[in-house]
């Protein structure tokens, strides 16, 4: 089964592939655009007693189009001493990691791009590909600020990769599967103390894991308070300093698309993903789920994504940033031990019940 079965037609393989690629692009760009408009343009402005863009389209809704047009017009500058190939490849590497991430996210009982058995493992693995792109960008720019930014990013992203992995381990233990689809199933078909009215979203049982995961996501996205690698007031945007025009746009899209994708993943892992509690309709297994969930599921996902992205952005607009050594201290001395204790308790409880 795959997404094509929704259309109740048999598509040739190439058409299915095309559909997946297009779907992937939509799944990456649509959340990115929504997050940028709703949160970056509007919510940030409202939090600062202003209105944000108002001129392009009604309430500035076409501002995104205008911005993209502006970036496309700009001159694409490569610094003279830059390592040209790596400099040009870096933004693409960052963007590609986002596309790879979205591949395993399930949007409905049949609406997924790949149903990968080790989905969580894969997700954590490709999530760190962006680090590579950032280091490439920082090094190839031949700029001291970029180099500092790239090195900071490398240190930070590697430090926060570990708490993220450890936070997810709790979920994996509880669900008993690394398949994201199975994790969704386990949450929605589960029950809390015999009551299945809400299913069993892991937000409640894995609250510590959720907190650690969201903090790690914040750090992976290099959003404030973890935006030391970008640090526009000291490193002048760090690894992005030398980028302009389309390449900067690529970084920008990647940043917010990744924010969207990580929100999707967090909602799959902790908020029950696309599902509604199965007990409402008497579904027993994944195969029982009605086909209309393929349409409603993505909408539920988007709603949950917006909620999580709101929290990410809210924190971003409110907090000043940590210093580099404080970041590391926080990751290694607080988040890692906390998530290890969380794993321990989850394992004990899993065995006990």
């Amino acid at each position, binding site marked *: 089964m795959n997404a094509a079965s929704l259309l109740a037609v048999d598509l040739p393989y190439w058409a299915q592939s095309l559909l997946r690629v297009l779907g992937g692009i939509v799944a990456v760009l649509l959340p990115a655009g929504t997050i940028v408009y709703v949160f970056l343009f509007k919510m940030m402005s409202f939090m600062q*007693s202003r209105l944000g863009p108002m001129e392009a389209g009604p309430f500035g809704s076409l501002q995104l189009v205008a911005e993209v047009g502006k970036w496309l017009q700009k001159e694409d500058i490569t610094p003279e001493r830059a390592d040209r190939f790596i400099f040009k490849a870096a933004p693409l590497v960052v963007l590609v990691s986002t596309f790879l991430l979205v591949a395993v996210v399930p949007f409905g009982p049949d609406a997924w791009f790949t149903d990968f058995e080790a989905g969580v493992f894969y997700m954590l693995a490709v999530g760190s590909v962006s680090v590579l792109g950032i280091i490439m960008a920082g090094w190839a720019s031949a700029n001291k600020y970029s180099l*500092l930014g790239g090195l900071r990013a490398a240190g930070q992203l590697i430090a926060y990769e570990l708490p993220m992995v450890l936070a997810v381990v709790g979920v994996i233990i509880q669900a008993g599967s690394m398949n994201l689809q199975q994790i969704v199933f386990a949450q929605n078909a589960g029950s809390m103390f015999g009551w299945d009215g809400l299913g069993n979203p892991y937000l409640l049982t894995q609250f510590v894991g959720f907190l650690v995961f969201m903090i790690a996501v914040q750090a992976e996205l290099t959003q*404030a*308070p973890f935006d*030391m690698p970008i640090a526009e*007031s*000291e490193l*002048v945007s760090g690894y992005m300093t030398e980028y302009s025009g389309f390449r900067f746009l690529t970084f920008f899209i990647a940043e917010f698309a990744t924010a969207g994708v990580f929100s999707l993943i967090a909602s799959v892992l902790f908020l029950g993903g696309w599902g509604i509690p199965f007990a409402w309709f008497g579904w027993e297994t994944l195969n029982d789920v009605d086909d209309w969930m393929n349409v409603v599921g993505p909408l539920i996902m988007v709603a949950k994504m917006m909620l999580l992205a709101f929290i990410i952005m809210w924190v971003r607009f409110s907090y000043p*940033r940590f*210093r580099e050594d404080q970041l590391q201290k926080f990751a290694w001395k607080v988040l890692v031990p906390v998530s290890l204790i969380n794993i321990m308790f989850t394992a004990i409880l899993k065995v006990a019940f």
Partner: protein
Amino acid sequence: MTSTESLIDRRQMAYIAAQASDARLNVELETEGMTLNIGPQHPATHGTLRIIARLDGEQVVWAEPSCGYMHRGYEKLTEVRTYPQVTTLVNRIDWLGSFANEVPFILAAEKLMGIEAPPRAQWIRTILFELSRIANVSLFLGDLGVQMGAITPVFMAFRDREYVLNLIEGATGGRFHPNFDRIGGLKDDLPAGFVDETRAVMKKLRNFCDEIENLLFGNEIFQSRMRGIGVIPKDVALQYGLSGANLRASGVDWDLRRDQSLPMAWNKVDWKVWTHPDGDSFARCWVRLQETREATLIVDQLLDSIPSGPVMAKVPRIIKVPEGEAWVSTENPLGEMGYYVVSKGDLGPFRTKIRSASFNNISIVPWVLKGVYVPDIITILASLYFILGDIDR
């Protein structure tokens, strides 16, 4: 004196530390340090200050500020301008609190001429002086967040500073450069409704101070970035000639508004000089926050007690200042600002020495930046609070 001895000790320690880290760079790790050139075009220097920092990894081994990129030669310009023209020039020194720049110059000229402004003019001068302090420091409070990645405070600062600028514009005609002070008094009286409006705005500003305190100063991340960073002990602060909030944050109870008897209205109202014993970045910011709040209270009290009467003493239409020399300094938003005016009896000053606070305040940068991390350069510079116009004049 013990303080001098300890200063020398500290200097030696700093020197030894720098030598050691240099040696470590070159011998132990067989790497060369990196020289990072912060500025002259850099978002953290809000202007064109350049800081040359020699780094070991992210640690600063040695740093030096290099200023003069915006030098406009005010001291020389004053020599070829008449007294009214100088007033409009000196507005531009510290452009965020420009009315406060006029006052010491006018007071110096008045001192030479042996006249004193009528009480009502003194009151209004003090009110506008404190308003410009609020306009200046409230922007600092917002900018503080931006230097550390919190973008919201600066918009709140601009929002509420707008009210103060509107007040200043309503009274003087100029938002940024009032040019309202005249030798012997003020250009004009206050417009009707100014008092009530100012009271309402002061309430808003106190609310703004609370918001900033909740949003920024109470934030644990902010505190961990600021506390214990860039500590300037009392004796070092005095040695480097710091003034204003930077000095008071080091525990020196020194405020020219209280300590001098100028023909201004500060001595007529109740207020408190805030000091902080720590001398770190947090202390400097905290003192400024409290001072903004205190300034709103000063303005409120002054509004209650404005005497009536003229705002202009009797002065000749064409002002010629008699021969002599005079030095007057006031406690400006950035620190002590003073003018040493030498007159030969002409239409304009023969020579003016301008002592602006920021120039002396950044002289401590090489001392205080030694051994800190690159991100701390920014917070320390932000907390020292300089304005480029005030450094380069």
